[in-house]
């Protein structure tokens, strides 16, 4: 690589990891000298199996991988449904317990209605969860966001490391054959803590 001409502006393509390691402060004298010095890492703990709670982890993981960050995702408790091939096509969204549920389309009926919270009772009506799920999936598809199984393929291709939680796996009586092929292993919480050393950790 050559040196840049004077005044040449070039986007940051990932020298930042190296920079961070050189500018990070020396560990305080007498302190633990084991501070992590490697490239930027992100650990995502996905614990929810609702459709709307599956996406934040998938989107963040994908975004981080695309930024050259080393990504580790731990699927635990209900989050295991995201990587279970028997369930991940059918994750659902319910408006129950979600007071932020409002429909942009209602604004066409009357101005302001698009910001109105939907009555919780409506969510209990038969078919409401199916309808809300269908709507959310359509909104996602309109924005060209892949469905969950395809998203996992994308993450896997992007080099994101995915793991299933051993305890949840046993508790749900899962079998390895049902795991999405991108899942690298069924590991314990302690294993994940080791793997995610030095990572920024997000619990979802």
């Amino acid at each position, binding site marked *: 690589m050559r040196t*840049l001409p004077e005044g040449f502006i070039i986007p940051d*393509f*990932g020298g930042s990891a190296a920079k961070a390691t050189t500018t990070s402060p020396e560990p305080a004298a007498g302190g633990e000298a084991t501070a992590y010095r490697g490239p930027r890492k992100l650990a995502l703990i996905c614990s929810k199996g609702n459709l709307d709670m599956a996406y934040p982890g998938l989107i963040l993981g994908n975004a981080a991988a*695309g930024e050259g960050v080393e990504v580790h995702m731990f699927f635990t408790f209900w989050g295991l449904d995201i990587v279970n091939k028997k369930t991940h096509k059918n994750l659902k969204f319910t408006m129950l317990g979600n007071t932020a549920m409002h429909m942009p389309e209602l604004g066409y009926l009357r101005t302001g209605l698009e910001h109105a919270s939907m009555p919780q009772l409506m969510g209990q009506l038969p078919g409401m969860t199916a309808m809300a799920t269908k709507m959310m999936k359509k909104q996602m598809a309109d*924005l*060209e966001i892949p469905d969950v199984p395809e998203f996992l393929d*994308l993450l896997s291709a992007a080099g994101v490391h995915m793991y299933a939680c051993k305890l949840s796996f046993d508790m749900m009586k899962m079998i390895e054959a049902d795991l999405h092929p991108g899942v690298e292993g069924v590991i314990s919480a302690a294993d994940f803590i080791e793997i995610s050393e030095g990572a920024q950790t997000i619990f979802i």
Partner: protein
Amino acid sequence: MPTNTIDGHTFAVNDEGFFTNREEWSEDLAVILADLVGIEQMTEAHWAPLRFMREDSAKTGVTPTLRRMQAVGGFDVKDLFALYPGKPAKKMAYLAGLPKPVGCV
């Protein structure tokens, strides 16, 4: 607006360094810039996604994301990461003379 000059090529960029005018891009310039982002040899495999990005963005007006490169362009995301390691979408957008991709996925 800042202007970059290298080996006789001049092009306007935004504060981050991305192209602001796609017409100021050329294949010769891309080869020079590729060297700057750590791609020593531009092979046919490197050029194919860049060509798709320019064609696609000419139609849509936005830089395609990796997901679109896969879904519409038929490229393998794994290959793109191998060809342009680190930040593939940004590197490719830069070398294709396009703005930074803004899509989330």
